[in-house]
């Protein structure tokens, strides 16, 4: 179950990567390199997945082992037994945990319905890789366990949901409006700030006339254009 905050969802997906390699390169390293090489800014495939606020991809190698935690007791019983038996000392240490696979981690904060979002990932995720080849979402998940059984959108949705974790402490960094609304709002804010700057001290008549032209140009109701394009990072 993904955690929701109003209309915003924190999707957290851990997909196990197949153990093994092609030649001397492990599936995990192949996947890691593909993630590393994704184009950025307006060329990122995430700009094409509708309603993506902020997404992240990384490879999880293993969990960290935290050794004996500090505590405030003057002594623990194991401090005494450890003097006599090394096995007692070892028993007192926290158990070591390891993951059985490396994982592809995908997290995304997005607006709206989960199925619609995952459909967007299957159908719209698209980019040109660093060798000039057109790629879709399968290029990232290709070496994950059982992903070869995913052949259509319904299969992809089911697969991702199987890999889902519940997000706790979801802090949404913006409003829960649609991405288009938010980007349009950003665009309007910048344009309107500029308008206010340019019209400081002007007459009411001139401001009103120019404002009409301003509205005709920026089209506040039109979420498609003109607007701030997804993935754009500088003016």
């Amino acid at each position, binding site marked *: 179950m993904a955690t929701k905050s109003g209309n915003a969802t924190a999707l957290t997906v851990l997909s196990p990567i197949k153990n093994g390699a092609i030649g001397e390169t492990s599936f995990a390293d192949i996947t890691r390199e593909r993630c590393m090489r994704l184009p950025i800014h307006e060329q990122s495939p995430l700009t094409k997945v509708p309603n993506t606020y902020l997404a992240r991809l990384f490879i999880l190698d293993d969990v960290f082992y935290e050794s004996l935690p500090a505590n405030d007791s003057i002594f623990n019983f194991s401090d005494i037994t450890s003097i006599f038996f090394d096995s007692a000392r070892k028993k007192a240490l926290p158990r070591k945990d390891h993951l059985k696979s490396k994982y592809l981690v995908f997290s995304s904060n997005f607006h709206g319905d989960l199925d619609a979002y995952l459909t967007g990932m299957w159908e719209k995720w698209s980019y040109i890789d660093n060798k000039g080849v057109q790629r879709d979402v399968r290029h990232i998940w290709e070496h994950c366990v059982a992903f070869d059984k995913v052949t259509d959108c319904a299969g992809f949705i089911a697969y991702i949901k199987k890999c889902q974790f519940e997000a706790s402490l979801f802090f949404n960094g913006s409003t829960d409006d649609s991405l288009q609304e938010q980007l349009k709002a950003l665009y309007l804010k910048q344009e309107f700030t500029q308008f206010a*700057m340019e019209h*400081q001290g002007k007459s009411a008549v001139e401001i009103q006339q120019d404002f009409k032209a301003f509205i005709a140009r920026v089209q506040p109701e039109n979420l498609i254009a003109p607007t701030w394009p997804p993935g754009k990072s500088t*003016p």
Partner: protein
Amino acid sequence: MTKDLDLTDIQGNIIKAYGAYNYQKARYLFLRINNGDKGRKFVAAITTKVTTGVSWNKSGAGPAVEKPMATTNIAFTYVGLKALELPTASLRGFPEDFMMGMAKRKDILGDDGPSDPENWDNIWKERVHIWMSINAQNTEALIERYNWVVQQVEASGGGVTLLTGHRGDAGEDDLPYQEASVLYDEAGNPTPKEHFGYTDGIGDPVFEGQTNLSARVPGRGKLMRDGSWAPLATGEFLLGHVDEAMEYPKTAPSPTLLSRNGTYMVYRKLHENVGTFNHFLDEQSKSFPGSKEMLAAKFAGRWRDNGAPIVKAPDDASKAEWDKAFEAADFAEQKRMLTDFTYNDDIHGAKCPYSAHLRRINPRGSLEYGVTGAYETPGALDDRRRILRRGLPYGSVKDATRDDGNHGIIFMALNVDIQRQFEFVQQQWINYANDFKEGNDKEVLLGNHDARHPGKVVLQVEPGSGKPPHFINNIPRLVETRGGDYFFIPSITALKLIAAGMVDPT
């Protein structure tokens, strides 16, 4: 916990802003070390004349030291210390920012476009090793001391080179020193002004171990909850002393004798676009509801003529009142009027804008935004971002409508942690405004305004006043970096150890 400082061990330029002691002239020299052994001998020779922080002929404990006609101080870049063959274990303990040097940190500092290192004076094309300053009460003393230094360079037999490549008044670009001087008024009297006309050098931080604390600390130390001021921890400005986090600064290399009583110095040559500034001020004041001087005061946070803080004199009428009180006040009271203030009565920035230079580089208690007890003390977010400011203007304005003359400020910031103090203020508070709830708006005077996407600043008004805020739009870049680097100013003890090749980190 106020222990007196070992003033005989600390270089004088850390303790004193020489400009305030009638040292009207200065030269800054940069040298390269070509041979470790000869370089160390040069440092030993210079150390015999290095000025310490002792008081000059003042009443109080300790020997009376004659105030010299000229001072001399010395500092080193990381590569300079390497050339002097400090042990690797010592070198490894220096912080990353110091090791990289200022040019490589340009993305943090916003030194782009005209401020990019590719546009810096020729002297900065390769990293310098040694910085030296000569501050003098007159030109004769300046030249005498300079000649003495040149003699030491020659005596090193090629071990040390005095580097050339500074720009000069007559368009030269290969001078062997950077000249600096106070500006003089029409009558030939020295003034504390810089080339935009502002009164500079007010309000240096005050820290534990300095003398005469109670008189100097209001407005200059750290602001406490009850409204009083306390001196900042010594370790914010001197290595080897406890800092505001109750720790010894971690930017200190090993051994302690190398770092204690030393500090780091940021040296920046800042060219001032005088013509652009004058034109900008003239144009903007046409639509500004107030006088041109009031607008200039809104940019800086202080009025140009006498440095009156605008938060205490927010408009022309109150400035006239402030001036009357200032003229009637004695010297001590005048100092207090200039520095003892907070922004507590100005949460909205209607008096001193949030984008004014003064408020950006030292917001005092105002980051609490009026919420008492938001932090442990009102200045908690500010106390560890303070810097000691040193330096002088350079050059002169021959044509106030042009930018391309030789005029600006040699600015030095002294602090124990370049990244935490100087670089933070530069990156987060001058070139960015999130902490001031002003988005991307850069500080008017020092911000690295982008000609392709010029920014704005909002001059707020008091809510409910019925007045509209005033916008300052299309701000041009007023100050350009023309050179600089990061230096380590050693203590006298450390200088002697370095010179003797006896730095031992084990």
